[in-house]
Structure formats: C-alpha cells, structure tokens
C-alpha cells in the first residue's frame, strides 16, 4: 500500500494527484516519525522543557538572583501532605524552621519544627520579575505566605534558589543549541552549496579550510576562541557574550553540514531536473534555491537536529570550565562550577541537579534526531 502510493507519487509528480490511495510524502514522513515511540517521548519532553523554562520566573518561587543570607547551602524545603489535623490530603505543607550558627563547626544549622505546619499556596505574591520580555508581575505559581521562602531544590553557596536558577539557566542552555544550529545551517548550507555547485578552485579552497578546522580538537579550539572574548562590562553585556559563544560553537559545527551538502549538490548537478532547469535557462540562483535546496531540506533538518545535543554539551563544558557563560548570567554549565569540589557535592547533592537537566535535554534531542533521520527517508524499509 505504502510502496505503491510512493511509486505513483514519483510517476505523477507535478500532475494532479487522484484522491484514492495516495499518501503525500509529508504524511509518509509523519507516519514513520510518529511510529517511533522514543521520538514522541523526545518531542513531548522537549516541548514541556521549553515551556517550563520559558515561564521560569513565574514557576519558580523566588527571583533567581535573590540571596538569602540566612539560608546558605540550604537543603530542599521538606514537604508533607499530612495536614495539622493528622489527615492525608492534597494540600502540601512545609514546616517552620529557624537558622542558628553551630558554635563548634561554624556551620549553619537548620532546625525544623516538625509540629508547626505552614501551607504551600498557589499564586503567591513574591519577588517581582519580568517574563518573556513583556510580562511584569510578582505572582509566583507556588509559594509560602509570609517571611518563609520555598526552595524545592535548596539553595547554593550564596543562598540563591537552585530551582529558579535551573529554570533561568535553562533559558540559556536550551537556546544555545537553537541559535547555534540556525547559524550552522546558514553557514553550512551556503558554503556547502557554493562548494559543490561551482567546484574548481572555490571547492578546493573550501575543502582545505574545512580540513584545517577539523584538524583541531573541538573543545580546546572553542575554549581558545572563547578566552579571547572581552570580560563582561557595560559595552559588552552578557547577551553579547552569549551570542558570540554560539557563534564560536557554530564556527566549527558548520563544516560537517557543508561537507554533506556538497556531496548532495554534486549529485543533483547530474540529475535530470537540474539539466531541465539549465536547458530552460534558469539562473544559478534559481537552480540552487528552487531546485536543489528543497530536495536537500530534509537532510539539512536531520543534520541540524543531530547537531543540537553537541552544542548544548559544548556550552555546558565551556561554562563549567569558566570560559563560557559568565556571571551574572547563568547556564547549567556555569551552575555546575559550584559542584567542582567533592566535599561540597557530598554535603549538598542538590547542586548537581543542573547535570540531570543537561542529560535529559540531550537525551530528548538525540531521540528526536534519530527518529528524524529514519523518517526523512520514508521509502526505505
């Protein structure tokens, strides 16, 4: 059924498709894609991640830069569903606690009063924030009325909400991949197409440049370039730095796409539809953009999807080493720098949560990329 319709589509290309027994290619791709359960997990997981991260300031109970001097390295707020009347309910409670300095170890000790329950409430007023660039508010999804604050993942060395920073850091870490891949696609497809289409000297030079870039190990090269970026100041903001880091990441990544696209374009150059276009007097630009690019588009999408995890991992490694995203900006990698010393992690394991977020994001993107690769060629078995 599927095979015959595929043949009919190929035979009738350009003519009106009859209504019986035909499945357009786009639908074939979707059928194949949605059959893959892992891809569905990856896709849905990523959508949820992006929504949570996008609404981060609202979902988190505190402003990500608020420092709570009385709750340094504070553990996650304990929760219970057993109310003051001793019955299990849907209303979550936490306990009242107080902080005191242990005179012997000089560490803060948090005394939790297990008898006094404080209800956790929805839509509580707290730190003011601005979200998505246009929403100004101070209402948070979950919180505690009064002085006490709610820290679902504890606090870091400066008493800042790890959960809030995880969401704000995710905005950086999850967009690095997207922006970087956009740049990669632009650079890679322009260079690859030019190289494959015109050939000759242009092609030779381009191939040598790619070989040169590939003869360096990626992370050290990225690090060397990132080390040359100026420190954050009024003229060179965290946003500038973020953008230049993505440029650096895609500066290496475009080579892979360019090479594959060059091969594709060289293949198309021999094909009948390009010959026909040439014979009817189409310009180079028209042949490239109208005839070749649409054919290569599924390929480009697949390469792009498979490149995103590498970019996320690259940013994380750079920021972890102190060469990527720098404070006051925050990313998952820069959060993990706090977790470098073993004793710190052992005593405050919640500082490792950004690592879990990285692994999840990369995993979801890999599922998605794998499924896209299988689906892009719906006629294969």
């Amino acid at each position: 059924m599927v095979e015959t319709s595929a043949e009919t589509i190929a035979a009738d290309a350009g003519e009106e498709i009859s209504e019986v027994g035909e499945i357009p290619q786009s639908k074939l791709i979707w059928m194949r894609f949605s059959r893959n359960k892992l891809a569905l997990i990856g896709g849905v997981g990523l959508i949820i991640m992006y929504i949570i991260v996008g609404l981060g300031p609202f979902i988190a109970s505190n402003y990500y830069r608020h420092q709570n001097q009385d709750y340094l390295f504070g553990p996650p707020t304990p929760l219970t569903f057993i109310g003051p009347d001793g019955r299990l309910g849907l209303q979550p409670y936490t306990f009242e606690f107080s902080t005191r300095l242990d005179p012997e170890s000089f560490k803060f000790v948090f005394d939790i009063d297990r008898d006094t329950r404080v209800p956790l409430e929805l839509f509580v007023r707290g730190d003011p924030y601005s979200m998505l660039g246009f929403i100004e508010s101070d209402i948070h999804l979950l919180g505690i009325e009064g002085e006490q604050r709610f820290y679902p993942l504890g606090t870091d060395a400066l008493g800042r909400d790890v959960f809030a920073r995880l969401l704000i850091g995710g905005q950086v870490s999850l967009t690095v991949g997207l922006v970087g891949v956009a740049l990669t696609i632009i650079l890679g497809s322009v260079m690859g197409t030019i190289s494959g289409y015109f050939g000759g000297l242009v092609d030779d030079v381009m191939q040598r440049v790619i070989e040169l870039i590939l003869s360096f190990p990626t992370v050290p090269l990225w690090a060397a370039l990132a080390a040359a970026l100026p420190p954050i100041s009024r003229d060179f903001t965290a946003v500038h730095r973020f953008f230049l880091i993505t440029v650096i990441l895609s500066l290496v990544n475009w080579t892979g796409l360019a090479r594959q696209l060059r091969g594709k374009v060289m293949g198309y150059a021999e094909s009948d539809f390009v010959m026909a276009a040439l014979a009817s007097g189409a310009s180079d630009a028209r042949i490239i953009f109208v005839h070749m690019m649409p054919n290569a588009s599924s390929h480009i999408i697949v390469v792009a999807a498979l490149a995103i995890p590498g970019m996320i991992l690259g940013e994380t490694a750079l920021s972890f080493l102190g060469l990527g995203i720098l404070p006051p900006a925050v990313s998952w990698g820069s959060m993990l720098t706090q977790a470098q010393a073993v004793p710190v992690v052992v005593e405050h394991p919640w500082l490792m949560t950004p690592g879990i977020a990285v692994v999840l994001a990369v995993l979801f993107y890999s599922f998605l990329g794998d499924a896209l690769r299988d689906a892009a060629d719906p006629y294969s078995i």
Partner: protein
Amino acid sequence: MISYIIRRLGYMLITLVFVTIVGFFIIELPPGSYLEFHIQSLRQQGGDVTPDQIQALERRYGLGDPVHIRFYKWISGFPRGDFGQSFQHQRPVGELIWSRLGYTLLISVATLIVSWGIAILVGVYSATHRYTIPDYLITVLQFIGLAIPNFLLALVLMIFLQQTFGMRVGVLFSREFRDAPFSIAKMIDLLSNIWVPIVILGVAGTAWTSRVMRANLLDVLNMQYVQTARAKGIHERKVIWKHAVRNALHPLVMTLGMALPGIISGEVVVSTVLNLPTSGPLFFQALIQQDMYLAGTFLVFFAVALLVGNLLADIMLAGLDPRIQYR
C-alpha cells in the same frame, strides 16, 4: 603505497603551516596580551629589572613589529624546540608541555583501544541478538552514555570512588612512585590509577562506536555472501567473525580519524576536573590567565597529534582492506 604516504606527508606539512598560523592567530587574539602585562609589571618593579632585559624581551617577541615578523619570530624557534615563554610559570613553553602532552596522548590512545575493543564486542552482540531484551538494554545505555557530559561523569565517578573506596582520584602515580625511576612496580601503580580517566573518556566513545558497529554488522549480515557462507554449512561463529565482522569493520576504521579529536577534547576537559598532570589543567589555566604562548603551542600540538592519527588510520585501513587503492 609508499608514494601515497609520501604525498600524504607533503599535504600534512602544508596543513601544519596553516595550523601554526591558526595557533599564532589565537596567541594574538586576546586584547592586551600577558606579555604586555608582564613587561608593564617589570617596568613598575623598576630597580631589579634593567631596561636591557625588557628590550631583550621585546626583541624576542617582536613587540611593535608587524604581524608577519612576529609570526616568523615565533615559528623560527620551532626547529630548535623553542616555542616561546610561559609568563605565568616563568619557564619556556617547551619544558612545560612535553611530559603533559605525553600523558594526554597515552590516555587518549589507551582509551581508543579499550573503548573500541569493548564497542566491537557489544556491537556484534547486539546485532546478532537484535530486538531481544539485552539489545534494548544496550540501546538505552548507549543513549545515556552519549548524553552525559564527560566532566559530569568525571565528577560523579570521583565522588563515588572517594566515598565508597576512599580512593584518591586525580593522580597518575602514588606518592612513593612519583619521582621513582621506571620499574614494573611503577607501571602497575600507573595502571591502578589511569583506568579512571580511561573509563570516563571511554563511555561516550564506546556508546557511539558500538551503535555504528551494530548498524554496520546488520547491513553486512543481509549480504548474499553471508547467506552463501551459511548455506555452505560453516559454523555460525565463523560466519559472524570471519565473514561479516571483518567487512563491517571498514567503515569503523574510516571514522578512526574522527574519533581521536573527540577523545583528545574529552581528555583535556576530564583531566581538568580530575586535576591530572596532563595537558588539560595547564591548557585551561593558560587560557584563563591569557598565557597565550603556552595555550597556542598546546593547540598546535593537539592538531599535530590529530594529523598523525589520521595518517595512521588511513594506512591501517589500507592494511585491512586490500580493495582500497591508493593513487
């Protein structure tokens, strides 16, 4: 074959020239170099430092000269083993990097061998047991292995080893062997420490290579010559290992050249986390301190290692596959 190798060496030399240009570009990149900073602080100290010394420094690195002369001054030291001065450590770069580079290469090559050995076995197993529960389990592990950043794995393993076994991670030699001359006991001591970075580095590579191996072998198992071999009644183990696996290995060897950059990248990051006495910590320290002659030279030598690795991979491929002809 020999003429092919000679031609490849010629290409390598040309690439090498460009590699050093990139390396120099990196050295020149940061605004306000460590050298200028160094000279400034020398000037401020006044007394102890004679103007001659500063002038000698300026002449050595061609401060104030145009770029191409500065580049020439840097590169002309290479044949003599002079790669410039590390201002942070107050020692010549050449002195600092050799032993560290050696350990980086040792760990990288060992990782490559170990992870390939495991990956081929795992790949063959999951290809011959396709769609069974162990195969699914391996697939899940492969995905996770590729998704964990290697520095995170290093952190987790470091904590685990220290908490459960009290093992001191972050050394290559125990204290009593550090300055000891070469001996069997010293080698054993090295082996008992070096497996930690190898395991950490090997995870991603093993995951990736075993996936490729599985796909390759599945392709090959559909070939007619495999069917023919089976039809002739050859033992299944021999069919797999002699007929199928040998042919499934070629695409893998072709990716050898691409595997090495990843491993060296990983080694540099992981050794920084574990604080091993290899290139990693020194390289990143140099970058953060903008001690650029040290960082640039490291980068050039990483590239040299990769170029040599690529050449070796190509020669190996020729040995493995007689069908490949070199012009």
